[in-house]
């Protein structure tokens, strides 16, 4: 009973916070409303019995939203929302498409004959997830690892404006890299 009430409240909070992201003027508040939506979804995962994934969503999303706040303040013209502004294009069209999508999805959800639960949840879902990722779903784990590594390399390549020739000279022969901010290892 308590779980039902909590999941209703968290669901409403998630959707309200998500809608609020595009309503507020302050970019900092928009980012932290998105964080609120993610925290509500993390709570929903906990209600569904997925302990590890719920706490993981809270952990990762807090970190990501704080980093996103840094970028939002960097790139948006009105970060504090001190003047009202409207930053949308084609608002009615996108509203129509979004509402239409929700109507179509809702119709499908309410009409489709969903199967009953096939089996019971394992006593420890975390162990089941770990064994799956390391066993039958090892390919998924490998692909995730390689994709994350590719992302790291690609983001650094895209984001820096200095390449290795700027750092090590035209023949890559400088003994120490020529960085504007020297690190702590005294290379």
């Amino acid at each position: 009973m308590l779980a039902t009430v909590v999941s209703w409240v968290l669901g409403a909070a998630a959707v309200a916070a998500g809608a609020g992201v595009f309503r507020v003027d302050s970019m900092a508040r928009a980012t932290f409303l998105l964080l609120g939506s993610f925290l509500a979804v993390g709570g929903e995962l906990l209600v569904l019995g997925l302990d590890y994934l719920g706490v993981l969503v809270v952990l990762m999303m807090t970190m990501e939203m704080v980093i996103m706040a840094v970028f939002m303040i960097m790139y948006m013209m009105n970060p504090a929302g001190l003047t009202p502004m409207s930053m949308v294009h084609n608002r009615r069209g996108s509203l129509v498409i979004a509402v239409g999508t929700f109507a179509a999805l809702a119709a499908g959800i309410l009409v489709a004959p969903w199967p009953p639960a096939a089996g019971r949840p394992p006593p420890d879902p975390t162990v089941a997830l770990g064994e799956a990722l390391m066993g039958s779903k090892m390919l998924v784990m490998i692909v995730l690892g390689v994709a994350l590594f590719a992302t790291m390399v690609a983001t650094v390549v895209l984001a820096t404006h200095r390449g290795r020739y700027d750092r090590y000279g035209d023949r890559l022969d400088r003994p120490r890299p020529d960085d504007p901010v020297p690190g702590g290892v005294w290379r």
Partner: protein
Amino acid sequence: MVETAPLWSVLVLPVVLAALALGAASLDAVLAARTAGRAPVRAAMAEPLREVARLLVQQRRTTLAPDAVLWRLGGASVLVAAVLAAMVIPLGRHAVSDLAVGVVWFNAMEVIVWAALWLAGWGANSAYPLIGGYRFLAQALAYELPHMIALITAALGAGSLRVGQLVAAQADLWFVVWMPAAFAVYLVSALAMSFWEPFDQPVQEDVAGGVTAELAGADRLVFVAGRYLLLTTAAAFAVPLFLGGGHGPLLPPWLWSLVKTAAVLGVLVWSRRRLPTIRMDRFEEVAWVVLLPLALVQLLAAALVVLVR
């Protein structure tokens, strides 16, 4: 071995944490008095209580066009995160909540401090707090991965994410004996997590107190108390992670937990006046190039030990 305590322990937890934090603050005041050459120790020990009284009567400050909601939320969240993170730490045989994923819960609550510091820096609409908040983010990105690897190493040694299992697995041999590098990395990250010296660039004097520059009165008390509580929680979590929890020969388990926590907390507070503040750009490279490979090699060694055992 660790059981979930009854519901009234939720009220006992903040009291115990506050007592430990007060002890840490008193030790810090005594060390400050000795460093400054002022001998009377008894007066210095009451310094934190005088500071609390002074902040309670001090007038609160506001700035021009602050983001009041975000500012107060950030200022208060450090304290809330510290108390929430301490929920999974056992005092001897009882923890407020022995979650099945206690280690991940501690990590998640500590990451809330990231958001809290950025919000406290942003909300004040002032340059120096903003700089302090961004400095903390740089420091946080540096220490977080070695911190997570250290936590994973301890969880690997016990084969579980439950803090009770971690304590039970150290009945014979404490983890600090065969995971010393992980313990060292955890202590470094505990200092960085609570922006304690030598990682106190977010609140340092060269930016007029950084995040605390525009805080006064009750807001400042909540923030500074939150910082001490966070340090206390980080020190207290080192005990079930690496120092055997409540295990020990003569004393009851809860007393052993307190003694070990006090020892770690004393070392962390003592290091404040021994080490200079580390600049974030230098610490970033050290963390990613030295601490992270060290933590990973330690993880590999611990995994090999667990496999061979």
